[in-house]
Structures are given as structure tokens and as C-alpha cells.
């Protein structure tokens, strides 16, 4: 082997066809493929919600209170069919679900990725620098992880106040520590490997070793956790909205729809809560199926 004058040659050990093998591995599980297909469909439905939904549920002028609480399959005076019924405001549940998915997915993806970026950076820094930096960071992480997510989220919402944006912030603050701990664990192992030593012997700057050499080799567990966290964040957003701390009544998310349906549930009007819940369930289960398979395929040691 000739020694290249370019340090790039010593970055992550090349493994030809690794990605391809992993993709094939992933596709071997029917449940994961089904989950992936469902996720694609759900994302497309959410993206094109304004084009395909029969009604704009956030536009109050389109709502007719006379159409309120109609059972699934009813027809309105204007000839519109409410396949999944309407809520108390005369809002088409199907449209409400499609628009609600937009909120749920945005909150889930945004918070999981922001938390991943913050947590990964912090975890890498802790592992790379070690010493006092590491012990301070890990104290903080342990402290945070000893409180359940929902409590951290409630704590943040109690301080910041209600609203979807605050839910996102609360979720980021509640979740970053999970990434930090896992990434640190992986990075501690990677740090001792030869390619890092090689990079160090080239006197590359610390940030470069950190982000170009160490980070790519710590990504597997981050991807697995991030996938699962999207599902968790969607569930938590729905829960917080259900408790009245998230989305507003005029722009309902899935959790809010379920919440408004609750009072009618007791009189037997099941559909307002039932269908949004099914949509939520399908979303969360598909993401979890994919995450489960990713964990098997990428096989990170400490997730």
C-alpha cells in the first residue's frame, strides 16, 4: 500500500457494497417493507393534503355547523361525502386527519432531528475531549435521563406556555440526552481505533477528526434512535395536544381531534376520536417496524 499525501485516504475504512448489503438485508423483512411503504404513503398524504383532502379543515368559512357530528358516510347539503364523519364544528374528519398528519410529522421529524444534532455533537465532544468536559456533560445527561420524557416536557411547557412550537422545544430538550449517551458510548470505542490514531498523527485539527472521522462511524446508533424518536415524538405531541397543551382548537393536530371527540364518545359518537387514533396508530407502528429492522440491520452494539 502506498502512502497517500492526502489524509482523506485514511477516512472511514472503505467497505465496498456495505450499503447495498444492508439495503438487501432490510428488504428481507416483510414487516419492515410494509412499514416503509406505509410511511411513504403517509408522508405523501401529508405533503399533498391541500390537494387531496375534500375540505380545508383550518378554514372556518368552509365549515358548516349544521353538518356537525354526522356519522361516517353521511352526505352534506353541498353533495360532499363525509367518509369518516364530521366533528362538532362540522369539520370533515378525513380532512382533519390529513392536515393533522402534517402537524404530527413536522413535530416528530423536527424535534427528533434537532435533538439528534444537539445530542450527537455533545456526545462526540464528551468522548473526544474526555476529562472534566466529559464528566460534566455526562452528569447533566444522567440527571436528565433520570426524569421521564413526559415530565421533562410538562416541565418545559409549564415554563414556556402552551403551543405547538413550545412542544417542539420541549421535546428537543427532553430527548437530546438519549443521543448524547449513546454517541458517547460508541465514540469511546471508535476513538481507540487506528484510523483515529492515523488522523491524529497527521495533526489534523480536532474539529476535523471529530466530524469527518469520528462522526461517520458513530452514525448507525443515531439513525436507529432517531427513527424510534420520531415515533415517540409523534406520540408525545398527540398526548400533549390531547391534554390541551399543544395544538390549538382551530388548527387541530391528531391529538387535538381525539381530544375534541372525547366528550362525544360518552354519548356514543365514536368516530371523532376513533379514526384520528387509528391514523396515529398506523403512523407510529410503521415507524417502529422500520426502526426495529434498522436496529437489526445496522446492528449497533449499545442501543
Amino acid at each position, binding site marked *: 500500500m502506498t502512502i497517500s499525501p492526502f489524509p482523506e485516504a485514511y477516512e472511514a475504512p472503505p467497505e465496498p457494497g456495505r450499503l447495498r448489503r444492508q439495503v438487501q438485508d432490510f428488504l428481507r423483512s416483510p414487516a419492515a417493507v410494509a412499514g416503509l411503504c406505509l410511511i411513504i404513503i403517509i408522508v405523501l398524504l401529508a405533503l399533498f393534503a391541500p390537494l387531496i383532502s375534500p375540505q380545508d379543515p383550518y378554514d372556518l368559512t368552509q365549515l358548516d355547523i349544521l353538518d356537525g357530528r354526522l356519522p361516517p358516510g353521511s352526505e352534506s347539503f353541498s353533495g360532499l361525502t363525509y367518509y369518516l364523519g364530521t366533528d362538532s364544528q362540522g369539520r370533515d374528519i378525513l380532512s382533519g386527519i390529513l392536515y393533522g398528519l402534517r402537524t404530527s410529522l413536522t413535530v416528530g421529524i423536527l424535534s427528533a432531528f434537532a435533538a439528534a444534532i444537539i445530542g450527537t455533537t455533545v456526545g462526540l465532544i464528551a468522548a473526544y475531549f474526555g476529562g472534566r468536559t466529559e464528566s460534566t456533560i455526562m452528569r447533566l445527561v444522567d440527571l436528565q435521563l433520570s426524569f421521564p420524557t413526559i415530565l421533562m416536557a410538562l416541565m418545559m411547557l409549564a415554563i414556556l406556555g402552551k403551543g405547538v412550537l413550545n412542544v417542539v422545544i420541549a421535546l428537543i430538550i427532553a430527548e437530546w440526552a438519549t443521543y448524547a449517551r449513546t454517541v458517547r458510548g460508541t465514540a469511546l470505542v471508535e476513538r481507540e481505533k487506528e484510523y483515529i490514531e492515523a488522523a491524529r498523527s497527521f495533526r489534523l485539527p480536532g474539529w476535523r477528526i471529530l466530524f469527518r472521522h469520528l462522526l461517520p462511524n458513530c452514525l448507525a446508533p443515531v439513525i436507529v434512535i432517531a427513527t424510534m424518536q420520531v415515533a415517540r415524538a409523534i406520540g408525545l405531541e398527540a398526548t400533549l395536544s390531547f391534554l390541551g397543551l399543544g395544538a390549538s382548537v382551530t388548527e387541530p393536530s391528531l391529538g387535538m381531534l381525539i381530544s375534541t371527540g372525547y366528550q362525544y364518545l*360518552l354519548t356514543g359518537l365514536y368516530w371523532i376520536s376513533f379514526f384520528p387514533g387509528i391514523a396515529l396508530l398506523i403512523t407510529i407502528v410503521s415507524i417502529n417496524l422500520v426502526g426495529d429492522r434498522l436496529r437489526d440491520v445496522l446492528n449497533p452494539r449499545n442501543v
Partner: protein
Amino acid sequence: MAISLIRRLIQALFVILAMTVIVFVGVSVIGNPVDILINPDANQAERLRLIAHYGLDQPLWKQYLLFLQGLMHGDFGDSFVYGRPALGLILERLPATFELAISALLIAIVVGLPLGLYAGLHPHRISSRIIMSGSILGFSLPTFWVGLMLVMVFSVELHWLPTNGRGATAEMLGVQWSFLTRDGLAHLLLPAFNLALFKTSLVLRLTRAGVQEVLPQDYIKFARAKGLADRRIIFVHVLKNLMIPLVTIIGLEFGSLIAFSVVTESIFAWPGMGKLIIDSINLLDRPVIVAYLMMMVVLFVALNFLIDVCYTLLDPRVRLDAKA
């Protein structure tokens, strides 16, 4: 052993102190303490009196010391809504939440442990696969939605169980409990089952994973070779070694059950701390919020401390490590 316990106790106190800083910063620096601590309906004279009373005209470090002082005396101020000390309100509702959380924990163990044991001992049977798939569903189902569906099926459609409140209670040790009366038990069943769902899946999966880790060990092979009965191997050798991870999780999860009871209590109108905190956040009843948060901090730190102690009692190696 005593020294390591004392060290952990000091650590625990330090964590509580750190959390008081966070809660204080949250309430007094990020939020506006005048809006937070003083009822918006108060007139100008009352405002000024309360600003002086809470020391909001003082510098920050002095305010923090005052906050700490109030904490030591259990004085978080009066609730705006109820006009009574916030801490008292929360302590009043503590037994209801504890009752719910303990019932849920019992359900999770009684259902999750045997199923997990079964799935771990017979991993290839179809029934085991069904159990494991079911546990994925238990993880994925949003707790609050399951609660609504339980209400729909068992209360609205079948009229078997009541939908809200604690029902009739009976007194034991000076506290009212639901589980002592038939009516109270009927009221407890749905919320406890709802709260237990997620934890049942967790206990189940942990037990299964633990069993599969223990089974290939030499001491199990040796026990088999000795000709011990399967029953004895499972209940003595396997279960005993499952205890450590399970105790940790059960301890940690008890805290999370109390936190998650917020959701279940809101659905079933269970008059516990969780319902109180949601009502308080919605009504901006901040003294109650602060009292609740500090209460939870103390509870969680105490729980973690207890788990540490249990560790040392259950696993002699931990004790040796502490000595070394």
C-alpha cells in the same frame, strides 16, 4: 457500604439543589415572575404588596435564597384557583395517584412477567410470537387513545364499568382508598389497566430478554445436569438472576407511571396529582405548578436512591465494587 450510601445521599441532595436552580431559572428568569406568582385579577395595591411579599423587588440571588427558604418550609404560595397552600393541595391528591400507579405496576408485573417468561422459554412457539407482536402493539398504542377506547367499549357500549372518579372510598391509615370498596375497585380497574399497558409490554420484553440471556449460562446447564426439576430451575435459578434488571426498571418505571398518570387521570377524571397539574397549567395556577415540579424532583431523586440501595442488597458484586 455506609460510606457509599452517604456519598449517594449527598449526590442526591446535590441533584435536588441543581433542579431547584433550574425550576427557579425557569419560573423567575425565563417566565415573568410577576405574572406567574400574582393573580392577574389582583388590584394595584395587592400587586405591590405581593411583589414585596415574594421579594420580587430584590436582586436575583436574594430571590433564589428566598425561593429556597420557602422550599424548606414547604411554602410555595397559595393556589390562585383554590386559595389554599399549593403543597397541601398536591399532598391531598398524592394517595389517589399512588394508588393508581401501584395498581398499574402490579398489573404490569402479574401479566408481563409470566408472559415474558413463557416467551423466553419457548421462543419458537407461535403463541410466543403472538405475545411478542402484541407487545410491539403495546409499545406503539398511544396510551391516551387506548384509554378512550376502553371507555368506549367497557363503559359506553357494555355498561360494565364506570367512566370517571374514584367511586366510593374507605379509610385506611387515615387516608381514603378506592381499592377497599367494591365500587371503588370498579372505578380503579379501567384507569389502572390503561396505565399498565405500556409497562406490561416493557416488563414482558425485559423478562424475555433476561431469560434468553440466563438460559445458556453454565449454572443453568449444571442445574439441569444435576437433574433438578424444571420448575425449580425456572423459579430459583432463572428468576433470581432476572431480579436485578427488573427491580431497576420497576423502580424507575414507578416514577414514570406517576408522571404518565397525568394522561390517564385526565381521561378518567381520576382526582390525583396529574389531573391537578394539567388543570393548573391550563389555568396558569403557577404556585401549584412549581410545587408539583419540586415534588416530582424530590420523588425521582428518592426513587433513584432507593434503587441504588436495592442494587447493593441484591447484587453482592456492587457492594464489593463500592468497597474497592
